[in-house]
């Protein structure tokens, strides 16, 4: 039994933590929060130079070829520091889609750029409120080009390439994934939305006959998305755990400094017990996420179940820790000045990115039934 990261992986994580403490203090994140710049561009480049965007990319495509365990630890640290970089869109989704379904040419073209953080990708799936089942996708691919409106798209405002889900004219009404270059602004329009978490930008992308390059065989969107989103769920879970633990320990530290009724508020059981519950939630989430990455790294048949399980647990944990961290900080937690709202924003943003909590809850139950050999709709 070895249900833990090894010492090399742990030292990579500490290295990453030290790096982010230096290069991405919250004052840097706040420049994005305050709208002074769209994301931490210099941090993004440095992540590439250090090899952090290419940990799960093979060396032949310019990556470091480490793997998913390492990628998860990096995600955890990015979540802890709230780094405002398009890591998840580019690394969790675009790189994984390329690895899974890209042609040699597509891989050669994009993976080395991702590994050096020389490109920013976005993932254009949604077409409005509610979940977007593939049957309802209106964006179309015909004659080598995409037309339609994708909204909202995370990192859509800053991306130079989009992975677009569209109805494929060359199939019987099925969807495929397409790579669309966003450097030619004449073929699409982007409109920025105000984001609940301004450190994660949102936009709409209105494609007008934008040239597109299909990824994978025609009509393979459903199977590819299911596989890629399972992976993203595990990576996101680690990001959420990093944030949840940070929010908990911020609250804990504050409760030792803040005095009321002549003593630290952290000595009141009402406050202690809230934090004990926050702690319990982070432990459960971490253990579940370990199982998720184990399933991912070993290509286990349990991945669908393990990913949903990790995602549900991590989402609940981060939402709980972030909202109760505000509460423990009292009025100060409600100010712009204190950092509590950054976690409150991020936790609720992540809770709906890559499928919302209720969708993952549904998937978890369906996976449990499937592992008993029962299919339910």
């Amino acid at each position: 039994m070895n249900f833990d990261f090894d010492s090399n992986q742990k030292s990579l994580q500490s290295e990453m933590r030290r790096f982010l403490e230096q290069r991405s203090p919250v004052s840097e994140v706040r420049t994005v929060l305050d709208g002074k710049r769209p994301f931490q561009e210099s941090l993004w480049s440095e992540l590439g130079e250090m090899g952090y965007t290419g940990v799960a990319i093979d060396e032949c495509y310019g990556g470091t070829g480490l793997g998913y365990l390492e990628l998860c630890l990096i995600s955890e640290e990015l979540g802890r520091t709230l780094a405002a970089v398009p890591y998840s869109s580019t690394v969790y989704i675009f790189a994984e889609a390329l690895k899974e379904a890209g042609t040699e040419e597509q891989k050669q073209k994009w993976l080395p750029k991702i590994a050096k953080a020389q490109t920013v990708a976005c993932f254009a799936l949604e077409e409005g409120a509610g979940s977007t089942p593939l049957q309802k996708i209106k964006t179309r691919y015909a004659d080598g080009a995409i037309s339609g409106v994708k909204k909202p798209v995370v990192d859509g405002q800053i991306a130079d390439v989009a992975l677009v889900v569209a109805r494929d004219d060359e199939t019987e009404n099925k969807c495929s994934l397409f790579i669309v270059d966003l450097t030619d602004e004449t073929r699409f329009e982007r409109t920025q939305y105000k984001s609940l978490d301004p450190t994660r930008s949102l936009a709409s992308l209105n494609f007008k006959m934008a040239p597109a390059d299909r990824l994978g065989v025609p009509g393979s969107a459903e199977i590819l998305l299911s596989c890629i989103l399972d992976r993203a769920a595990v990576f996101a879970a680690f990001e959420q755990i990093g944030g949840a633990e940070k929010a908990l320990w911020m609250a804990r530290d504050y409760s030792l400094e803040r005095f009321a009724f002549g003593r630290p508020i952290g000595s009141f059981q009402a406050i202690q017990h809230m934090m004990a519950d926050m702690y319990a939630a982070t432990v459960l989430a971490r253990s579940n996420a370990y199982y998720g990455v184990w399933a991912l790294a070993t290509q286990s048949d349990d991945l669908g179940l393990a990913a949903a399980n990790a995602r549900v647990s991590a989402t609940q944990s981060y939402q709980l820790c972030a909202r109760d961290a505000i509460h423990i900080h009292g009025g100060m937690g409600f100010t712009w000045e204190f950092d509590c709202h950054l976690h409150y924003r991020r936790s609720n943003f992540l809770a709906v990115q890559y499928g919302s909590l209720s969708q993952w809850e549904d998937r978890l139950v369906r996976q449990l039934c499937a592992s008993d050999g029962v299919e339910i709709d």
Partner: protein
Amino acid sequence: MDFDDTREEAEFRARARAWITKNAPHELHTELVNAPFGHLDLRSVDAVQAARQWQSRKARDGWACLSWPEEYGGQGAPQMHTIIWSQEEAVYSRLGAPFLVSQGSLGPTIMTWGTEAQKQKLLPPIVTGVDIWCQLFSEPAAGSDLAGIRTRSIREQDGSWTLKGQKIWSSGAREADWGVILTRSDPDAVKHHGMTMFFIDMRAPGVVVRPIRQITEQSHLNEVYLDNVRVPDEHRIGPVGAGWKVALTMLTNERITVGSHMPTGFEELFSLVNQITQSGVPAVYDRSLRSRLAGFASRANGLKYTYYRALTELSRGGEPGPEMSIMKLVAASTMQEIATLALDLQGLRGAVVQEGMDDNDDRFQMMLLRSAGARIEGGTDQVMRTIIAERVLGLPQDMRADKGIPFSAIPTSPNQKAPAAAE
């Protein structure tokens, strides 16, 4: 990261499995599987008798108390062997219920605090299952505030002791041969300093055990009265006045034992939702239910994988981390919520507590009743949260009215005034 055994562990597992296949009481298998959660009751045989037989068979062939030193009847095996053993023992490990105190918490405490003579005398009969132990800690006025115990131990001229008082919530006291008992030897010392730990012969003159009928209708818990019970000084565990420290050793071991074994009932609930129909289809088709099911599933899984993380530490020869402190807190309340939902899904049938009613017998009803106690025993939910807050998160202790004053001066009722605390 992997779940595989090391080669040595795999070899041990294979040997354990082969022995269990050959020697387990297979005739009890179905009954053990279906026995309701909680204290062990069997219908076809006397549970304690069956437990003793299984234990003695294990001891005979060298499978009992694996991690204990050989000179006291164990095998001196690594902790990991104990874990692998209990995985392989599976449902038969339920026969270990009467030995929870003796093997789970008392044994390790004797190894830490006992004299060599005590180790020699007490540990081997625990291994063979000859001796059953009970714990005599709680009192009517000392539950969560365990250090508030008042059962007196008075030193006699000849060096022996006389014990007087009342203990309560003692599980299995009627079957026990020995009781480990926390007493107050010096009421004028500060609360946590005036206690001493002993063990007593449960059949000694002056020891009276009365069963308590529980909400489950079972009577595994007892009151134990001590009317001038004479105890030789050789039955003292640890130094005079160090009883609280000894008690903490016991409690720490108890929480590890209980927490790692606590089920949540999720598997049973999941079969129920696949089985029971609502508007003609299994309940699991109801999407509004899935959010709750997923929440329970992720908690039950989280507990399982938290336990695996602790095993990883043990496997490396280390100690489990602070994560284990959440186990009982999460498991007990989850079980209560699960039982409540299961009854809801059963409709009015949920109010029927009867075996043979259908495939679910009285499973969820017993779970509902039993889980209320699980949230109290071995540290209430609130005590567990306070432990996490103080020991894991490093938060300061709440203000207390009993600090720094003699135990005898601590108020016990509303009309007593607390003296000014001397810090």
